[in-house]
């Protein structure tokens, strides 16, 4: 049966504030899944806690709404147990880069094949607008009693330093382009980050739609491309990376969207497991039979027991 776009929606009432950037991100994900013709039963969407984290309830796919900051380890566990799943991970900026920063960084080391979508609104939306780790130093958004006392994390550069092999940035109100980025990220083999600039009209009165619109431009329109392969020379690498860093730091009159970085040199964690356990893909943890029809265990440990028999 042909899948329709509506097949990716649920009946759950969407309870984000009017005008919230999250609506655009939700549509982009649904459209991306639809255009990639992914069977909802083979897609698992994980989220942490926050306004952003409600997304899975609105998508007709397996939805795992977890703990604040912990979506990544849940997602990694599921993906490694069943590598056939398409895995999406929704992170809030507080969720992913504050309380869950350790997981965000360490996920990069593994390069598990999954797509992280980071909703960056500069605030802790669900707890009423406190400063998030991406809010710039000295800014005073609506509900802050005093200007922000911390510097901001740059998610693009943090992802790069951590080892993500695909790093892109989209904008919540540019649905077609965000959909394109999410599709590219899903198709990328390895850990992909899509950093989404997401206006929160209720608590972030600085980085608004009006603020973003004149500043945003697309990297590819300037002929920018950064793909690292095994053939890339040291010199080329340094040139590309320094340009990437320059672009990632651009945050003023101009703010770039697009694919900042693709690294095709690394194997995925699944491939690394397979190199050690040849039967892994064929018979991954979630698919293994562990008992016979009578309930008797079938794991054969007689060989192992020899080490202990005396």
């Amino acid at each position, binding site marked *: 049966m042909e899948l329709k776009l509506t097949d990716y929606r649920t009946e759950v009432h969407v309870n984000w504030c009017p005008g919230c950037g999250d609506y655009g991100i939700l549509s982009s994900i649904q459209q991306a899944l639809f255009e990639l013709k992914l069977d909802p039963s083979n897609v698992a969407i994980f989220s942490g806690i926050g306004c952003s984290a409600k997304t899975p309830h609105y998508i007709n796919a397996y939805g795992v709404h977890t703990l604040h900051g912990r979506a990544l380890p849940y997602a990694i566990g599921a993906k*490694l147990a069943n590598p056939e799943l398409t895995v999406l991970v929704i992170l809030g900026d507080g969720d992913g880069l504050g309380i869950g920063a350790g997981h965000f960084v360490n996920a990069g080391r593994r390069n598990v094949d999954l797509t992280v979508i980071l909703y960056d609104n500069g605030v802790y939306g669900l707890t009423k607008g406190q400063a998030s780790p991406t809010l710039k130093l000295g800014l005073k958004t609506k509900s802050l009693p005093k200007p922000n006392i911390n510097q901001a994390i740059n998610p693009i550069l943090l992802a790069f330093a951590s080892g993500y092999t695909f790093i892109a940035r989209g904008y919540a109100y540019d649905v077609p382009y965000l959909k394109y980025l999410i599709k590219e990220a899903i198709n990328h083999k390895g850990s992909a980050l899509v950093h989404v600039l997401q206006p929160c009209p209720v608590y972030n009165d600085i980085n608004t739609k009006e603020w973003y619109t004149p500043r945003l431009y697309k990297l590819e329109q300037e002929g920018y491309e950064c793909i690292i392969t095994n053939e890339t020379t040291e010199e080329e690498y340094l040139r590309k990376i320094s340009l990437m860093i320059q672009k990632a730091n651009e945050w003023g009159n101009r703010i770039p969207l697009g694919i900042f970085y693709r690294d095709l040199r690394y194997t995925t964690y699944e491939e690394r497991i397979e190199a050690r356990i040849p039967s*892994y893909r064929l018979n991954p943890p*979630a698919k293994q039979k562990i008992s016979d029809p009578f309930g008797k265990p079938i794991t054969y440990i007689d060989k192992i027991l020899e080490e202990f028999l005396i």
Partner: protein
Amino acid sequence: MNNRGISWLIGGAQGTGIERGASIFFTAIAMAGYYVFGKREYHSNIMGEHSYYYVRFDSKPVYSHIEKYNILASYDAETIFRHSLEGLPGSAIIYDTGYLNVKTKDVPTLDKRVREDIHGRFNNNFVSISDIIEEAKSYGIKSFPINYKEILNKVALKTGEKLSELTRMNNVIAVSASLAILKFDLAILKKAIDRVFKGRKVVVKLNSLVAEETYEMVNSLGYINEFNIKISPIENKSKRLLINGNQAIALGKLVGGCRFQTYYPITPATDESAYLEEHEILDVENYDPVKSEREILKGAGSIVVVETEDEIAAITMALGASLAGARASTSTSGPGFSLMVEGLGFAGMNEIPVVITHYQRGGPSTGMPTRTEQGDLRFVLHASHGEFPRIVIASGDISECFYDAIRCFNYAEKYQLPVIHLVDRFLAHSVETIEPFDIKSVRIDRGIIFDENDLKKLKEGGEKYKRFIFNSTGISPRIFLGTKNAVFWITGDEHDELGHITEDPVIRDKMMEKRMKKIEIAEREIPLEEKVNHFFPSYNSDLTIVSWGSTKGVILDLIDELSKEGYKIEFLQIRLMSPFPSNYVEKVLFNKKWICVENNYSGQLAGLIREKTGLKPNNLIVKYNGRPISLDEIYIAVKSILEGKSSYKVVLRGGA
């Protein structure tokens, strides 16, 4: 052999082969047909601090240690300073003559408290090894001085190895000398060396040569006939397993079908995960119903072991794998469990099967990382905010570790909840000879799971799959992530049957009651023998001992001794801590004289029994210095209780 078997102790600086030496010793003894029990004591340090390994063996099973030795095998000065006066009359000290002039001040790792004790005893601040040895002799302890260097010199001459390279085999000299004075068969010792070094030819040859030379030296010194205990091999009809708790749990997990294990390194849990990773590729039996034959499929199965960034990731990653359909678990100790609490609550809320193997160690906080304690019972029972059902099972010995590890997964999947397997440092690192596992008796029960065909039928019948569907048992059929013909949602928020967020008071009540109902069902369904071990039940016992976990062994050894003196002792070992077998415990203890024995400060089980049954023990025996309870100390404590001479709370303080 005397009535408490033979106790042997080897000591030395951490990192100098204590464990290797002990392995050779107990392997040789076990090969000669004896039951062995071995326990390790060490500091949270990699090199240099004092560490020792204790072994007791007998022709009947041994489950515990005593504070005294029959043979002290040393190859450094500190071991002699610390342990030599703990000998039984007629016992032996084996030591290197090279240390005779070493004084307490020359041993920087000898901590102040121990040093002052020694100085106090001699009334002198310059106590040397020869002083200590003389003192020991006056207690009736025999000394067996051996020039270790001379032995190594001979080996160096024969092999051309450098002497400096050979000094790391001082442990083997101490072991071999111990066996030599016992007139133990050298050929068996050599077999043990081969086994411990896994047949690595060069190493085996060198170590065997050291053993031979040591035997010769002991012989030439005329020590062979000086020690009054002799050990000759005994015939065994069937083989036994020589195994520790970490390994038994790991094997239980493999047999039980655990296919995903996560961990963040922590003593004393890590060894289990390392062992699993070492055995990540598994052979599986395939049963052909047509031919009714079994074949072994080599390497067809596997367990994925992931070292995570922290314990929060460890439990949540295991939960992700469980949602996808793998039997999943994680292993940790107190500090790690503290971090896992949030994930535990999530598993409870979302009815996700997961097994947490919790190895207790001395707490609170970092506590005593390498020492044992049973201080976390209350913690694991109550950890996390809110209320949800959990199963907690405490193993009492190494065999139980194996079977319980399997059972945990059945409970977890049948009742769809987190299961905590509670063990401790002592069980993890103690070695015992046990009967081989009866794998044929084991069953796997994965509970109610819908597959894509079930879901297709549901769909065709116009119904939607609901992950948390209300029914009479509270146990809703599970499906795994990726199963065709359906999806589900879950959330840490309170949720409706579909798994979507709700704050509706009516649904909240129903969902809460659905979850909690499962524990009542578990309580009804789990058979009594999985809840308690009730030894020597009687209506007119002199005393009933109640305990849990790793104290089982020493209590059984104690009862064996006391029964020889005519006492009638009953022992109730409680295994299932949640759901607690309140009715049975109450029935057994009502109107009895009973005591509770625990390796903690407050008597956590005693408190739990009081909470569940209203009953209070006549006495409480506790120990919280990080050392397991020894047979000699508990004997004295229980004897004085039996004689009515004891105060309510007895604190045991033994151990080095």
